[in-house]
Structures are given as C-alpha cells and as structure tokens.
C-alpha cells in the first residue's frame, strides 16, 4: 500500500511522503480459519520510520472470509479532500470481476452509511458507525505557524519541528484511513449488509457516484429531523419494555454511552498533556546542547550527554503518547460511536413497539366500532411483524456487540500495557546507561 501525502498549504511547501504502509489486515484479528490474512504482524515491522506506526487500531473483531474482502489499498491526501482507493477481492457471483478497485471520497462513505440508516429493512441491525470526517485543520495550522516562525529558531530546531509535524500529519492520515477501512470491513462482515446493492455499487462502480455533500437546506432538514428524533427518542424510551433483556440493554447502553464519552474526552486531554511535556523535553534538549557547546568547563560533557539522552527519551515519550492514543483513545472513540449506533437500534425497536401498541389500540377501537376492521387488522399485523423482526435481530446484534466490545477492549488493553512496559523499559535503560557514564566521569 502506498501512502502519498500531499497537503498543499498556502505558504508551506507541499509535503510528499512515500511510505509503505502496513496492510490493513493487521487490525483484523485472525479467525482460526482465515490465517492467511494475518501474517502475525502484531508486533510487526515498522515499515515506516521510527516515529510512525501502522494503523493498528483494532476496534473490531471480525470474522471475515474469502468470499468478500475489502480494504483500502491506497490513499491520497489533497488540499481539502482525501481520496481512498477501495480494493475488493471477491468470489461472489454478483461482481463482474474477482478483484477490482475504485476511488472513493469521504462523502461517498457517508452516502453509503445513510442509505443503510434510511433503509427500513435494516432497522433491526446495528448500522456500523460512519467514519469521522478527515480533519487535518489542526495539523495544517501548526505547519503554517511553523512556516511563519521559521526565522525565530535555529536551523536544527526548525527541521526537527518540521519532522515532528510531518509525523503528526502522517499519523492523523493513517488514522483516518483506518477508520474508513473499518467501516467497510464491518459492512463486508455483516451477513445481511454485505448483500446490500448500494454497497456493491459503492465497491464496483468505477465512475464517480455523484454524491454531493448535503447542501444547506438538506443540512437544516437533517438538523430538524434530529431534533424530532431525539424528542421522540425520549418518549419512546419512557415506554417500559416487557422484555427484560431489552430493558436491561436500554439502561445499560444509556449509561455506558455517556461514560464512554466522558472517558474518551478525558483520555484525549491526558494524551495531549503528555505530548506537550514531550515537546518541552525537546526544547530542553536543544538548549542543553547549546549550553554544552558553549561551555568551557568540565560540565560541558554533562550537558552534551544529557542533551543526547533527552533527545532519545523524548522520542520514547512521544511514542508513548501516540500508542496511548491508538490503543486507548481511539478504542474509546470507536465504542462511543458504536454504542450510539446500538442506541439507535434500540430506539428503532422502541418506535416499532409503540407503533405496534398503537396499532393494537386502533384495532380494538375499530372492533368496538365495527368499522374498518380489516384495515386495522392488516396494519396491526404489519406492525407486529415489523416489531418482531426487529426484536429478533436486535437481540442477536446486541449480543454480538458485547462480544466484539469485550474482545476489542481485551486486545487493546493488553497491547497498551505491553507497549507501556516496552517503552518504560527502554527509557529506563537509556537513563541508567547515561547515569553510569556521568557518574563515572565525576
């Protein structure tokens, strides 16, 4: 997979970085059967420079099989959009070829997601959450500020900071690729959604889907729809469910969703502080270096050695922050979105339940009045069927959700702990060896 970064900024020169990216198969756990996908890359080689890592945000535990494999094989970042190359391998008869690629943009992913949501047939499933919009604004701003402040720092500082920011940009870029890929893989893994026609079009149609972003009017419509929906949601939620399972799930999901939101925000803040501290250590290292070169006394050796040490420890600290970001923050963010999708499912079911109950009442009234009984009966039947269909699939979906969630948390927490240990040990070794040298010197 090639990754081409090309954010053309107004003032700053365009970044072009070619790097081989670890394949997306990395972040799918290996089901015992499909071992061919996972090449044991868990702690795999960093194709990228020391600073970067492949997108290993394992947020889902998917059972995929050879009949339909989807991944994002390439990505190109341009001024204000990202172009993803979606690559499909399939043995299904619906497709004209066995292997093909198309280029898609973010809006087309959103279109696909929305088409699922609006489809009544899928009311009983947890719709995989849409990937977040690629957001490079913060990173671009920083790059621009750096360009402006070029005069005020030394050449080395400038190159260092530029490298930092480029690495950051790259990291964000890889994350967004991963998010889009996860979405597609979830759809491909879902027994029902994978058969969706829109999905096949999305995968195969090699022309532009002409999906324009929503214009203002549509956005306003959406906004009102959401308002109505949340009001309705409150009403629906108030209806007590007969089924214990769903009642429990309702309360659970509500609380869980809120807490995940909180945890996600707090973990973001924590990681940001960590990054700031690492930046400070960077500056300290530079100043120590200058001091060391200027100083004529014995202590200059100390300064130079410590400056070198801090350079290395800073890199490790930055890595720690990045890993925490991947394993913890991203995990929480993803489950924030998924729990929202699960809540949506429950809402839809609740809505169907209310409709069903209303239909029952209407039927009773009709029977009492002996007017339009047949009509009321059919409508009641329809509601009943709808409700039962949703209930059935919803139950399975929610159980699957729990399994996926537990597995993902487990994997990520284990990896987080392992990485933290690895970095702490690395740090410790650096510090101890430097101390040894310094103490020996005095």
């Amino acid at each position, binding site marked *: 997979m090639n990754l081409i970064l090309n954010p053309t900024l107004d003032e700053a020169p365009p970044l072009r970085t070619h790097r081989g990216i670890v394949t997306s198969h990395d972040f799918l756990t290996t089901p015992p059967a499909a071992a061919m996908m996972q090449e044991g890359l868990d702690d795999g080689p960093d194709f990228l420079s020391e600073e970067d890592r492949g997108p290993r945000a394992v947020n889902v535990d998917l059972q995929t099989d050879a009949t339909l494999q989807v991944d994002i094989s390439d990505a190109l970042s341009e001024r204000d959009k990202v172009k993803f190359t979606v690559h499909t391998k399939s043995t299904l008869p619906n497709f004209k070829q066995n292997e093909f690629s198309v280029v898609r943009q973010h809006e087309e992913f959103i279109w696909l997601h929305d088409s699922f949501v609006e489809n009544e047939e899928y009311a009983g499933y947890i719709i995989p959450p849409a990937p977040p919009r690629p957001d490079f604004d913060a990173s671009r701003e920083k790059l621009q500020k750096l360009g402006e402040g070029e005069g005020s720092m030394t050449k080395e500082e400038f190159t260092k900071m530029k490298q930092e920011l480029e690495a950051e940009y790259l990291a964000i870029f890889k994350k967004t690729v991963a998010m889009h890929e996860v979405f597609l893989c979830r759809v491909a893994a879902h027994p029902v959604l994978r058969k969706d026609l829109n999905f096949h079009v999305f995968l195969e149609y090699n022309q532009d889907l002409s999906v324009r972003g929503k214009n203002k009017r549509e956005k306003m419509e959406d906004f009102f729809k959401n308002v109505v929906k949340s009001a309705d949601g409150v009403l629906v939620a108030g209806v007590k469910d007969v089924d214990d399972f769903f009642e429990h799930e309702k309360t659970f999901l509500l609380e869980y969703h809120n807490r995940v939101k909180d945890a996600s925000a*707090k973990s973001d803040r*924590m990681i940001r502080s960590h990054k700031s501290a690492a930046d400070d250590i960077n500056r300290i290292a530079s100043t120590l270096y200058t001091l060391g070169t200027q100083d004529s006394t014995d202590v200059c050796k100390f300064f130079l050695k410590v400056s070198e040490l801090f350079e290395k420890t800073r890199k490790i600290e930055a890595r720690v922050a990045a890993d925490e970001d991947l394993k913890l923050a991203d995990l929480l963010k993803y489950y924030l979105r998924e729990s929202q999708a699960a809540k949506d499912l429950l809402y839809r079911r609740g809505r169907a339940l209310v409709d069903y109950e209303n239909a029952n009442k209407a039927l009773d009234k009709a029977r009492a009045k002996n007017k339009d009984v047949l009509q009321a009966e059919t409508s009641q039947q329809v509601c009943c069927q709808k409700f039962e269909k949703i209930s059935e699939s919803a139950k399975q979906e929610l159980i699957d959700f*729990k399994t996926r969630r*537990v597995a993902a948390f487990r994997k990520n*927490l284990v990896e987080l702990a392992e990485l933290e240990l690895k970095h702490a040990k690395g740090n410790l070794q650096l510090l101890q060896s430097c101390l040894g040298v310094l103490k020996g010197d005095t």
Partner: protein
Amino acid sequence: MAAEMEPPPLGNAGETDFRELEDGEDLFVSTVTTLEYPEPSSPEPASLPAEDISINSNGPKQKDVSFDDDPEDLFAEATEEVSLDSPEREPILSDGPSPAITPVTPTTMLTPRMDLGARCRIEEDNNGDTFDIHIAVSDPEKVGDGMNAYMGYKVTTKTSMTIFNKNETTVRRRFSDFLGLHSKLASKYLHIGYIVPPAPEKSIVGMTKVKVGKEDLSSAEFVEKRRSALERYLMRTVKHPVLLKDPDVIMFLESSELPRAVSTQALSGAGILRMVNKAADAVNKMTIKMNESDAWFEEKHQQFENLDLQLRKLHASVESLVCHRKELSVNTASFAKSAAMLGNSEDHTALSRALSQLAEVEEKIDRLHQDQAYADFYLFSELLGDYVRLITAVKSVFDQRMKTWSKWQDTQLLLQKKRESEAKLQFANKPDKLQQAKDEIKELEGKVEQGEKDFELISKTIRKEVSRFEKERVKDFKAVIIKYLESLVQTQQQLIKYWEAFLPEAKAIA
C-alpha cells in the same frame, strides 16, 4: 606565594599572582595530596588593616597555590557540607579588603589553625570534614495577624567550626532578616569584587496570600518554595570562604535577637534610595567606555552573557515542563475516575474488573507524575533560577570593576587639571594659592595611586571569585543533573511495576 591572598600593594605582584592561579588550575584536577599548612607565621596580616599587609611566603609556591584551590577541590565531595582546609587563610582574605571587620577574629583563628592543621593532615585523603557547616531552614510559622503578619523560619546551624560559639545553634528569622543580611554583605563586599549570592526574591502576591491566611495548596507551595530558597541562599553564602567569616553572617546565624532590617522594605527611604542608585548605575554603565587591557575580562564577560541567555532559556523550558507535567497529572487523575465509572457500568464482569484495575493504575501514575513534577521543579528549575540570579550578581561585580576603573581615571584627569592649574599659578606668582595647589596635587597623587591599587585589587579578586564560582557551578550542576536523572530512573521503575501488575489483569479478560 601567599601573596595572592593579600591585596598586593604593587602592580607586578598582582601579575605573578595571576600566573600562579592559572597554574593552580591545572594542578587541581586530581585530589590533593600535597595538602600542607603553611607555618602558622602569618597572623599579622590578619590584624593589619587595608593595604599594607606584608607578604609572607610560606612554603613552596606550588603548595600554596594548590592550597588556594584545595578548598574548592574538597567541595567536590561535599554536597551540603563545606570542607575548607585553609581556615587561617580566611582572616587574611577577609580582613585585608574589608576594613570594617575588627581585628578581633584573627586571634581566635590562631588556635583552630593548629587543630585543623592536624586534622587536615590526617583526613586529607578523605577530603575530610575539617570545616563543616550545615544550615537548615525549617518550620515556617505564621506570626501575627493581618497585614502585619509574617512568616518566621527556624534556622539551625550545625557546625564544628570554632568561629561559632556553639556546635549547634537555632534561631528564628523572618524573610526581611535574610534580605537585610544580603544588603549588608552586598554593601561591604560587592564593590571590591566579591560575588555575593543574591537573596531570594520578594513576592508581594505570594506573601499577601499567606498573610491573609489562605490555607490552600498554592500558599503552602509558596511557603515551601521560599523555605527551600532561603536554605540554598544561606548555604551558598557560607560556602564563600570570605563571607563565612563575616561577623554579620555569624551574628545572623547565632544571635537570638536581630535588629529589624527596616531598610529592606520596598517603600522605605532606603528602598527608594536603592532604586535611585540602580537607575544611576544603569545610566553610568552606558556612559563608561572602558578600554579593556585584559583580554581575560573581555572573554569572561562575553561568556557570562552567553551563559545567562542560555540559562534563562533553559529555565523557561523547564518551567514549562513542570507546568505540563502538573497538567498531565491532573488529567490522568480525571481519566482514572472516568475509567472507573466506565468499569462500573460495564456489565461483562472480567472487563469491568480490568477497567477498574486500569483506573487504579492510572491513579497511581498520576501521583507519579506529580512527584516527578515536584522533582523537576525543586531540583532542576530552582537551580536554574538561582544561577540566573547569581550570574546577575557576577555581572554586577564586573560592573563594579568598571566603576572602579572609571573612578581611577577621573581622579587622574583631575590630577592633571590640578597640575596644569599649578603650572599656571607658578607664573602668576601667588605663593599661598600655589601652596594650596601643591597640597591638593599631593593629595590627588595619593588618590590616584589608591585608585590604581583598588583597580588592581578588584581585578585580582574578581579573577579568583570567577574561578571559584565556575568550580561551584560545575559541582552544582553535576550534582543536580545526577540527582535529577536518578529521579527519572525511579519514575520509570515505578511505571514498569504498575504496568506489569496490570498486564495479567488485562489478559484475564475472557
């Protein structure tokens, strides 16, 4: 030659001294083995005032030179304790340049010299604690109420030195007492070229909070910061061999009652006078154009400018690091709480337990970050702050030298003018005015000579002081850097422990 210790009346002697010093620098690399006391035959210099101290040369040149450097060499081992080996040198130093000191001290020095000499010989390999003093500032207590309240600190001096009356003294002092001590020392020693360690800064905001009685974290931190700074200030002051012997210092450390140093208040008459003087000095500095005959001073001056710049930069970065680490600690704590809540609501038991464990780990880590921030600050940041202020003192000493030179030059110019007017008067034939002019000229000639001597003296003193300062600086920085790295090592070790404990919990999620 013991000459370098005394103010040389002659110019050339000064030069030789410099050379000796430079040699001494080389000798100083290894620990001293040729540690010997010059025969105790030079108490006289101590009792003589000012300039005309006879030079006595005891022992071979090398030994004396190494003597000069040895005090500092002994410093290498000491952290808090000061080991000086040539106490009898001090009266020579202190009494010479500062006429203010009464000649009383020398006699008390005679006896200790003997004992210390013996001890010194025995302990020379241990860089022995022949001369140790340890000062601790502790127990800050608020005295009084309202805006007149102040913080009283306990100052404990533990020493085996005999210039002190007791081995252990405890007194109570307040902040203005410290400032008063500094201002006295500065007025006595600064203008002759001694680097007097600067006192901790006043802080109106901090003190007001304390006075008002705010019992919160920030005012407790402020008091702790100040206490630590006062302790460092006193230790630095007594590490200076000359300042240690100053009666004001001894009185500060020993006497139970101290006259209130009112002149340190910002708005007092003395305070305003100080401000005016500072402004005048700044103006003078700009107008004095000194032709530097000595390249050493030029070079050192530049070096200190560079050092100042870099240290300030470093200080700023370290302060920023402290701030961010504190922030990290706070954010980690809040994340820990949030993770605990999440664990509570998770209905899968094993995952729930793991999340709670994660919350605990993060909580411990947050405390770890806090401790590390504390270490960052007290070890690293405060040291840098101290040195930034110290370098300001060094720079002002250089300025004093300039002032002395300028005074000398002015007197010379005045002499010249007087000579010219005398010549005129000779032709004008006014005998009484002529005599007056002749008297004035004689006086001025004396002053010019004095001015030159002063200039030579201050130059020599500064050289010595700068070399002592540099050695102190090297020692301080090395010690602090090592301590700081050790604190970082500890943090990492703890981190490893915590994560290692967590890992099996995470793996146990079924």
